[in-house]
C-alpha cells in the first residue's frame, strides 16, 4: 500500500499532537498563532544553529523555526568541516523529527519478547520497571543481587553521536561495567588502528591541494564524508585532481573518476603490496623523507622484494592488469601531492588491519604526509575535560570477549565475539542485561538470527532511542529520546586543517513525552544510585572493609567521596556545562559567537570571508594547520611489537585470503547510498521518495542466462540465513558478485513506512571476525541466488 502524506498536512498533524501532549505549545500560544496568521501575518521566526545527526558527519545548519515548528533546515556557512551544505539526509531531518512512528512515551513490555505488545507508562513507572522488573522480566536490582554485585553482568551498547560519551560515563564509569560494545567493531576500527599504529594518526586528506588520489573501497559520492566529498568532486576530471577508483562495483564515485579498476573483493592488500614493490624496486620513493621519518625501512624493503610482490603476482589475485598496477605506482610517486585515500568503512576482509598498515606505509614512501596536499595531522582546539569520580567495584570482573583477539580494545570490544560467546556459553560469568541506546544490532551486526537469540537470552533489555527499531522491539523498557533537533548537545571540537568548536542547540523543546539523553542519564542515575549502593554494601567486601563501623553520616560521605553517588555527574545541565567549558577555554565573546553561529574558532571574525554565494574561506591559507607534526613524525614500517602479539610486523599476503567463489555462487558485497544512513533513516518519508527499497545487483549477463529480469523476486541464501529481494540486473558488477544496500528490510512493523521494503543484509552475512581487533568482516560471505 502506498501511503502518501503531504508535508503540510503532516506538520499540522504533529503540531496538534504536541498540543495534546501539552509539551511543545501551550494552548494560549496556539490561539495567538491563529490570530497572528489571521491578522498581522507576523510569525515568530528563528534560525537556530544545529548539528545534523542524520549520519555521523555532524554538518552544521540553521533550523528555521516558525512559531515553534521546524519548517526548513538550511546549511550553516560558518563551519569549515561541512562548508555550507546539507546532503539529502540533512535536508530531510525534519521528517525524522516529525516521524509519526516515533517513540513518544515510555513503554513497558506486557507481551512476549518480539510480539510488540507494550503498555504506555509514566517515566517514573519506566524507571521502576528497570529497577524492579515486572511479572514479565527481572529488574536490574534482582539481577545484581543474584550476581552478588558483579556489575559486569550488565552489558551496554551505543551508536555514534554527541551524547554517546555521557552514556559511557554513566554505564561504564559510574555503574561500573566494562562490557561495552558499540559501532566501532562493526565499522572502521581496523582502519583507525592501522593508521594510528603506522603514522600516528588517521589524519585528514587535504583534497583541496592533492593532485593524485587512489580511492579504494571508499565511495565518497554515495557514502558522504565532509569535507572530503565536497572537495574531491570539485577538482576531479581534468581540474587538478586525478582520481583512480578501485572498487568491485561501478559506483557514483567511479563515475566521477579518471580510471577504474574492478578489483576482486578482499584483495586490496595485494594491490598495495604490488604498488609498494614497484616503488621500492625502482627507487621511486622520497628518499629524504624516508631517511628522516621511516622506522624499519630496510627491513620492509627486503620483506617486499624478497616476497616478490610483483604486479604480475598481484594481477592473479586482484584481477587488475599488471601493467596498470605498474602505471599507477609510477604515476603516484611522480605526482607532487599524491594521496592513497585512507577510506573509512567497515572491515571488508580479514586482512583489513594489514591493508591499512600497507596503505599508510605506501603513503609514507611518497613523503606526502604532514604537509599541504598530503595527509595532514592538523590541530584540535582543546576544550576542558571534566574529571569523573569513578567508583571501584570489588565484585566487577574484566571483559571477556576480546581475550581471543591479538590487540584487545578494552573499551569497545567486539560485537560479534561478545554476542557469540554469550550465546555459546563460553563467557566466564553471565551477562544478563543489556542497556542500549541509539543502536540497532539486529540490522548492524552480521547474523541477525544470533542477535535475536542474544536479545532473547537477556533477563532485561532497556532501550533509549527515537524510533521503534528492530532491536527496540526486543526490549522490555523503552525510553523515548528527544531527536537531535530537540536537544542541545555537549559542545564538540572538530580538528585537523581548519579546526573549530561547534554546538548543537535545541531548535524546539522535546516533543511528546520524550527527554534529552542527558536528562534521561541524570534521572536514571537518581533512581538507581541508592538501591545499587545498597547492593554494593551487601556484597562488596572491599567497601565493607572500608566502611566497617561507620555511622550514617560517614557512610554518606564515603558514598559521595568515592564516586558511588551516580548523580554527581549531573550537577550541571548540558547548556551550563557547554558555557562553562567554552568561556574557560576561549572567553565570553567566543561563547556569544558560538551561541549565535553554532561555530567558533580563534580569529573567526577576521579569518572568515564569504567569497561568493557558494564559497567561504575559513582560515587564510597561511593560517591553516598543514604542518604540525614536523620532526615527531614517524612512519613505522617494521612494527616489531606486533610480532609478540602474533600479528605480522610487516604487511604480508597470506594465500588463504585469495578471492574464491564456488561455481554457481556469488560473493556478497554491501554498501551505501547518499540518500539514507543505515536502518535509522529508512522510515523517513522524504528519503523514502528517493530510495524506497534495496535491490539485488546482479550481473546482466548472468541474469540473462538465469532468466532473471528487473524486479523478479530472488532468494539469497548463505550459511546463516536467507532473504528475499528484487533483482536489479546491471553492467556495474562482476559475474561472480552480488550487491545490496545495507539498512533495509527491517522486521519492526512499527516503522510503518520502512516495513515490508527490501531485505536486511545482516540476515545473510556470516559472523566472521578479523583476528587483530575482532572487527566484523562484511565481505567474506558466499551466497546462492535463485528465482522464487
Amino acid at each position, binding site marked *: 500500500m502506498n501511503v502518501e502524506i503531504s508535508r503540510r498536512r503532516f506538520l499540522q498533524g504533529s503540531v496538534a499532537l504536541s498540543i495534546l501532549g501539552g509539551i511543545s505549545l501551550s494552548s494560549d500560544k496556539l490561539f495567538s498563532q491563529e490570530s497572528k496568521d489571521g491578522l498581522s501575518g507576523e510569525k515568530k521566526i528563528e534560525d537556530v544553529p544545529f548539528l545534523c545527526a542524520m549520519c555521523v558527519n555532524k554538518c552544521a545548519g540553521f533550523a528555521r523555526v516558525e512559531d515553534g515548528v521546524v519548517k526548513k533546515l538550511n546549511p550553516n556557512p560558518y563551519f569549515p568541516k561541512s562548508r555550507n551544505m546539507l546532503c539529502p539526509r540533512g535536508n530531510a531531518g525534519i521528517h525524522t523529527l516529525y516521524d509519526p512512528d516515533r517513540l513518544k512515551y515510555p513503554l513497558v513490555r506486557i507481551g512476549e519478547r518480539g510480539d510488540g505488545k507494550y503498555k504506555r507508562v509514566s517515566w517514573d513507572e519506566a524507571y521502576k520497571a528497570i529497577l524492579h522488573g515486572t511479572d514479565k522480566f527481572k529488574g536490574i536490582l534482582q539481577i545484581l543481587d543474584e550476581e552478588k554485585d558483579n556489575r559486569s553482568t550488565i552489558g551496554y551498547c551505543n551508536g555514534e553521536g554527541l551524547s554517546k560519551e555521557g552514556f559511557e560515563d554513566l554505564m561504564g564509569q559510574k555503574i561500573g561495567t566494562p562490557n561495552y560494545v558499540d559501532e566501532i567493531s562493526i565499522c572502521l576500527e581496523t582502519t583507525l588502528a592501522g593508521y594510528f599504529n603506522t603514522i600516528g594518526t588517521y589524519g585528514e586528506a587535504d583534497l583541496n591541494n592533492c593532485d593524485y588520489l587512489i580511492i579504494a573501497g571508499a565511495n565518497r559520492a554515495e557514502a*558522504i564524508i565532509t569535507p572530503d566529498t565536497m572537495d574531491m568532486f570539485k577538482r576531479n576530471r581534468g581540474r587538478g585532481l586525478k582520481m583512480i577508483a578501485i572498487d568491485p562495483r561501478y559506483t557514483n564515485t567511479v563515475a566521477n573518476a579518471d580510471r577504474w579498476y574492478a578489483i576482486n573483493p578482499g584483495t586490496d592488500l595485494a594491490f598495495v603490496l604490488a604498488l609498494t614493490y614497484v616503488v621500492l624496486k625502482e627507487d621511486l620513493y622520497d628518499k629524504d623523507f624516508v631517511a628522516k621519518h621511516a622506522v624499519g625501512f630496510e627491513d620492509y624493503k627486503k620483506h617486499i622484494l624478497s616476497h616478490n610482490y610483483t604486479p604480475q603476482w598481484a594481477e592473479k589475485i586482484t584481477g587488475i592488469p599488471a601493467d596498470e598496477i605498474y602505471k599507477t605506482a609510477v604515476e603516484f610517486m611522480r605526482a607532487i601531492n599524491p594521496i592513497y585515500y585512507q577510506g573509512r568503512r567497515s572491515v571488508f576482509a580479514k586482512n583489513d588491519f594489514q591493508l591499512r598498515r600497507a596503505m599508510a606505509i605506501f603513503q609514507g614512501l611518497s613523503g606526502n604526509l604532514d604537509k599541504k596536499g598530503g595527509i595532514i595531522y592538523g590541530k584540535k582546539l582543546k576544550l576542558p575535560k571534566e574529571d569523573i569520580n569513578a567508583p571501584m567495584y570489588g565484585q566487577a570482573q574484566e571483559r571477556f570477549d576480546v581475550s581471543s583477539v591479538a590487540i584487545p580494545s578494552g573499551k569497545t570490544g567486539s560485537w560479534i565475539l561478545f554476542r557469540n560467546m554469550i550465546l555459546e556459553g563460553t563467557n566466564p560469568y553471565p551477562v544478563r542485561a543489556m542497556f542500549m541506546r541509539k543502536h540497532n544490532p539486529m540490522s548492524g551486526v552480521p547474523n541477525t538470527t544470533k542477535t535475536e537469540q542474544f536479545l532473547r537470552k537477556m533477563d532485561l533489555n532497556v532501550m533509549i532511542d527515537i524510533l521503534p527499531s528492530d532491536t527496540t522491539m526486543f526490549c522490555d523498557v523503552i525510553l523515548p529520546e528527544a531527536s537531535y533537533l530537540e536537544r542541545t548537545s555537549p559542545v564538540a571540537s572538530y580538528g585537523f586543517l581548519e579546526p573549530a568548536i561547534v554546538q548543537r542547540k535545541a531548535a524546539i523543546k522535546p516533543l511528546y513525552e520524550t527527554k534529552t539523553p542527558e536528562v534521561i542519564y541524570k534521572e536514571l542515575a537518581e533512581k538507581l544510585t541508592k538501591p545499587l549502593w545498597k547492593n554494593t554494601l551487601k556484597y562488596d567486601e572491599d567497601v565493607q572493609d572500608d566502611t566497617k563501623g561507620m555511622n550514617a553520616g560517614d557512610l554518606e560521605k564515603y558514598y559521595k567521596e568515592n564516586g558511588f553517588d551516580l548523580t554527581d555527574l549531573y550537577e550541571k545541565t548540558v547548556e551550563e556545562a557547554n558555557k562553562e567549558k567554552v568561556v574557560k577555554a576561549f572567553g565570553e565573546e567566543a561563547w556569544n559567537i558560538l551561541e549565535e553561529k553554532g561555530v567558533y574558532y580563534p580569529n573567526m571574525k577576521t579569518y572568515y570571508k564569504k567569497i561568493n554565494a557558494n564559497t567561504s574561506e575559513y582560515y587564510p591559507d597561511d593560517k591553516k594547520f598543514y604542518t604540525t607534526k614536523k620532526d615527531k613524525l614517524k612512519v613505522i614500517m617494521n612494527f616489531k611489537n606486533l610480532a609478540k602479539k602474533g600479528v605480522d610486523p610487516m604487511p604480508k599476503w597470506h594465500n588463504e585470503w585469495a578471492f574464491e567463489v564456488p561455481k554457481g555462487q556469488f560473493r556478497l558485497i554491501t554498501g551505501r547510498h547518499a540518500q539514507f544512513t543505515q536502518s535509522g533513516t529508512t522510515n523517513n518519508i522524504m528519503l523514502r521518495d528517493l530510495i524506497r527499497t534495496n535491490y539485488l545487483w546482479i550481473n546482466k549477463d548472468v541474469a540473462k542466462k538465469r532468466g532473471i529480469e528487473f524486479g523478479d523476486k530472488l532468494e539469497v541464501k548463505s550459511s546463516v540465513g536467507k532473504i528475499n529481494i528484487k533483482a536489479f540486473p546491471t553492467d556495474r558488477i562482476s559475474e561472480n558478485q552480488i550487491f545490496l544496500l545495507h539498512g533495509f528490510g527491517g522486521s519492526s512493523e512499527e516503522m510503518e513506512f520502512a516495513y515490508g521494503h527490501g531485505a536486511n543484509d545482516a540476515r545473510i552475512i556470516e559472523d566472521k571476525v578479523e583476528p587483530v581487533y575482532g572487527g566484523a568482516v562484511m565481505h567474506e560471505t558466499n551466497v546462492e541466488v535463485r528465482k522464487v
Partner: protein
Amino acid sequence: MNYAMVLDYQNCINCKACEVACKEQNNVQLGADKQRIWVGQTDNVIFGNLFVNFYPSQCNHCLDAPCVDVCPTQASHFVEGGLVLVDQKKCILCKGCMEACPYDARFVDDERVAVDKCTFCYDTRILKGETTTACQATCPTKVRMFGDLDDENGDVIQLLKTRKFFVLKAKEGTVPKLFYLVPENDEEYALQSIGHSNKIYTWDEMSPIIKAAKAKRSMQWKKS
C-alpha cells in the same frame, strides 16, 4: 532583472540533496514522481566501458516559453525577472503546458489540483531577500549559481563570460536559462553526455539571443 541559473554540472555526484531541499523549501507534494527538480543521468557503454554522467535539471524558465503561450487561462505566466510561474488558482489541469514543455519540467500536484514546477524559489526565498535558491544553497559540491543576467558584475555573468557552456535542447528555440558549463579540461566528458551535435556557446554568441528573446517577451512580465 533576468534570473538565470548556471550549473557546473561536472561537480554533480547525484546525491539528490537539491531535490530534498526543494521539496522542504517549497512544500512540494511527496511522491517519487513529484519533483520540481531532478538529476538526469546518462548511462552508456562506450567502447566496452561504462559511462555514467549526471546533469541536474529543473524548469529552464525559458525566455520564449511555449508553456505560457498554450495556457488557456493564463495560469502559466511570466513575472518580473523573466520567471515562468503557475498561478495554481487559475489552473484547470488541461495539461497543455506539460505537453508544450520540451523539458518535462511540469507535473500535477494532486493536492492543490494544479500543475506545479520550479519557481527558482521566487516566492519562498527570493522575494524574502535571499539571493540563493534552496537547491543551490544546499548542494555539497556547489553545482548551481543563481543570479541575474542583467548584472554585469554578478557571479552568473562572470561565469558565462569566462566559460563555455551549453543549454539543453537548444534546437527547440525556447531560449532556456539553465546554462551548463562545459568542463574546462575535459570537453569530451560533456560531449559524451550531451551528444556531439549539441552546440557549445560563448557568452558573445548567447548574449544577442537572450537580448532578442527578452525584447520579444518582456512586456508580458507581470510586476509582482
